[in-house]
């Protein structure tokens, strides 16, 4: 009831389009049940990631030969690994790594991708042609294959895998932004800005960027789950985080040799990846449904 009165209040006294768009979208978002599951999982994950080592009951690096490969028990709820390290502590510490890596990957991909997309879409001409043919090469591959190929070329390591995933990711944002800009640059407010003597950087940053912003954020919210998956996959192959780093994919890679005797060893980090990705996917899909104006007319 309360929310409906608020709706009429805004429709009587219209405010800035941006604010009401955001508010309406958020209200729609709150009505999607899976969004709440997503928000819950993501908040828990973020809390654990922020707490970092403080969330872990034991030192995730502490080796204890006497405790190796212990099954789950009240003392070690997730059991211990082949070096007697507490798995719960390692999985909890891993949350920070996975989340940080995913965010860095997306920020890198977004900065490069959106920047080049703005350039290609606004300048057009040969610049557009060169950039689009370059993205063609990148998009000729499934993202994970490209990331693996690049990471393989760069050599193993967490930072190399970040670069590899970001490098395989930016063309998607470039395409997205360029496509939008092709129609946006013909808008009257751009013409108005040009006639007022605004320079290209100003038009790009002040007038065009804010208008592609929401699309990019929606895309990023869908992509973050897959960024976590890609990071874990690279680590599992041995290209990402190296032992003893408690990265989830890397833990599972180490667990493979012991899984016949210790089912808990690969299972708990695996479930952690699943839950994290599920949380972001549920949230990302709900955000897209709530914020995408084309889908809104349907709902």
């Amino acid at each position: 009831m309360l929310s409906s009165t608020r709706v009429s209040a805004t429709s009587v006294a219209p405010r800035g389009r941006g604010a009401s768009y955001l508010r309406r979208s958020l209200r729609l978002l709150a009505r999607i049940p899976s969004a709440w599951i997503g928000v819950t999982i993501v908040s828990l994950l973020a809390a654990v990631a922020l707490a970092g080592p403080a969330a872990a009951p034991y030192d995730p690096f502490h080796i204890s030969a006497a405790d190796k490969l212990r099954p789950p028990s009240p003392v070690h709820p997730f059991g211990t690994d082949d070096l007697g390290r507490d798995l719960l502590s390692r999985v909890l510490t891993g949350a920070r790594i996975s989340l940080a890596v995913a965010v860095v990957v997306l920020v890198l991909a977004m900065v490069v991708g959106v920047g080049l997309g703005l350039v290609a879409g606004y300048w057009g001409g040969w610049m557009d042609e060169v950039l689009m043919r370059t993205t063609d090469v990148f998009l000729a591959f499934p993202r994970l294959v490209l990331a693996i190929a690049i990471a393989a070329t760069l050599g193993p390591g967490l930072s190399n895998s970040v670069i590899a995933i970001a490098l395989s990711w930016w063309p998607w944002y470039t395409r997205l932004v360029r496509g939008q800009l092709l129609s946006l640059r013909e808008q009257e407010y751009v013409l108005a800005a040009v006639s007022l003597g605004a320079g290209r950087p100003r038009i790009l940053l002040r007038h065009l960027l804010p208008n592609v912003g929401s699309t990019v954020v929606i895309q990023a919210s869908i992509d973050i789950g897959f960024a976590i998956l890609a990071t874990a996959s690279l680590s599992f192959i041995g290209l990402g985080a190296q032992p003893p780093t408690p990265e989830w994919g890397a833990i599972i890679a180490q667990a493979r040799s012991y899984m016949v005797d210790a089912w808990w060893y690969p299972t708990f980090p695996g479930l952690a990846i699943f839950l994290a990705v599920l949380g972001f996917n549920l949230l990302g899909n709900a955000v897209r449904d709530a914020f995408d104006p084309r889908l809104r007319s349907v709902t």
Partner: protein
Amino acid sequence: MAAYALRRLILIPPLLIGVSLLLFILTHIIPADPAKLIAGEHAGPDQVAAVRHAFGLDRPLPEQYVVYIEKLARGNLGVSMLTNSPVLGDLLQYFPATIELTAAAMVLTVVLGVPLGILSAVRAGGAFDLAAQVFSVSGLSFPIFFFGILLQLVFVRALGWFPLSGRLAITASPPHHVTGLYVVDSLLAGNVADLVSAVSHLALPSLTLALTSIAPTVRITRSTMLEALSQDYIRTAWAKGLMSARVFVHHGLRNALIPVVTVLGLYTSGLLGGVFLVELIFDWPGVGLYSVNAITAFDYSAIMGTSLLLTVTFVLINLGVDLLYAVIDPRIRY
């Protein structure tokens, strides 16, 4: 249609040049010195220099690239440092296993994904539909390497229904080589024991690989089927008094199928990414395992060769999918 296919095929060489250039640049901006790696840890500076000269690594970069492309044009992908044999020969030896794995995963995707999607559209809003949707969201969020390990824990370790890894029982000898696909070859040879062994070895890896494609297939089939079922001609079909099976399959499915084929094509190519993980978990001797081994050994010729092979495969799959449209939908002409 032939002209269209030809035009698409002509685009492959420029694409290969682009991909090889990208990887070539990357290999040469990294700090690791391939000459040192080839020469070994204990090599002196003279030996490293000799290796550098022997592999042409002391020449300017553009020249090295031109040499590589010239060799590539003649079908020479270089020699693998790991296996000490030509990369092309290695790839030809490993590729059939990957084709078999991917094809099996694709069959599973169609056989499981499409019917599940249709059923959930026909019973939209019901319990089955809800379960299928939960499955499809979870499937997309599940790391496939973890799924493979879970399958191994349940079906190999706990139940003992399937073998842990490999393509064939150690005691069995591979069937006479015709296609390189053990299931097909053992069928052709009429060797039942090999066939059973090959299929049971293929079951878990292909199911693992198919996870990433089954989930979206269910989702797309459901939504396109729902859309098709809301059309006027469906109402007409019902009004004519047709049996429900005929309405669903002949009028609904046929029209719902085109977007499904698009997605299937997209995910077949997507499966190529999963191949690396699945082959590693199940010790499946395909190009994925070959290149993961190459990666850990810094075997650049092999890495480059695998990447180029996958590029060609990817382009061919996409072309195949485009041509398939014309078969499914007579309205499409090239």
